[in-house]
């Protein structure tokens, strides 16, 4: 039998990491950043792929939650979203890991900034 891939609820809290309502936490930080173009594109890909039926918001959340707490603490919001979108599209068979890897190599070869690599 395969090992379970979903992290278990912790014994102390009886809940998974994302279920954080009511837990202790630090002060509010109201610093705001403007969304970068690549972040807006990630958001748009999610909306379009779900509208076209490739996966649902529940699929997005499942992959986000399965990434675990470390990802929440170390990756930005849309970094986690693009990772989750990728998981869902791979599962849906939209493209293969190999296709993605090859395309990422091509993108990286184009330049050192987002503008260069994405063609402006």
């Amino acid at each position, binding site marked *: 039998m395969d090992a379970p891939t979903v992290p278990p609820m912790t014994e102390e809290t009886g809940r998974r990491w994302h279920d954080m309502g*009511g837990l202790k936490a630090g002060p509010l930080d109201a610093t705001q950043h403007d969304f970068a173009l*690549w972040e807006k594109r990630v958001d748009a890909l999610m909306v379009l792929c779900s509208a076209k039926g490739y996966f649902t918001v529940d699929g997005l959340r499942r992959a986000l939650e399965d990434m675990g707490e470390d990802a929440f603490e170390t*990756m930005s919001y849309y970094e986690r979203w693009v990772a989750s979108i990728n998981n869902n599209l791979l599962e849906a068979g939209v493209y293969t890991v190999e296709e993605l890897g090859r395309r990422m190599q091509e993108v990286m070869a184009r330049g050192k900034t987002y503008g260069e690599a*994405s063609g402006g």
Partner: protein
Amino acid sequence: MPHDHHDHDDFHHDGMSPSGHPYRADNDTPLTYWQVMEIAIRELLIDKGIATASEIAVQIDTMDARSPADGASVVARAWTDPDFKGRLLQDASAAARELGFDIGALRLIAVENTADIHNVVVCTLCSCYPRNLLGLPPDWYKTRAYRSRVVKEPRRVLAEFGLTLPLSTRVRVHDSTADMRYIVLPARPAGTESLSEEQLAALVTRDSMIGTGLPKSPA
């Protein structure tokens, strides 16, 4: 950052896109792994005919066009039209659609602030937000601090936003889900009897519709 692989005599001016325009500032930082992944996924989707570049651009424009001003216009209508307010509190999705807003399939619920009750909205599990009426959520809405604490010690959290409520005010915190999202209908400020709907809408802040603030007072 410098584009040191370009000659100074190169046709493209340093820092300019192939079309000769300056890159947006946020496009000019070193490329990250996740940005590479976004570009690759987007191109694969386009190559496979799943989405077009223009569909993606239109979706970004649609999201960019959404702002708290949309929610504010709904609030101002509710302040000036009691029948509309009744419909809004009955079914906020349908009422917002009356004003031409695309609410999608989600169920939108408006919760009314009164002299005795103050409502606050959160999504403790993730980041669900009435984005169709307010645009994308502020960063703090998605933080551990807000998600964890506002359901446990809302008065303390509101005080950190500069909002101290009298103890006689009952505070209600509403936890959103992906399919069911809340928006606060703030109380109409005193001294606004003579204002037009448009002037009223200008008093309605984003935070007043999340519940972490109040509408502005008339000038």
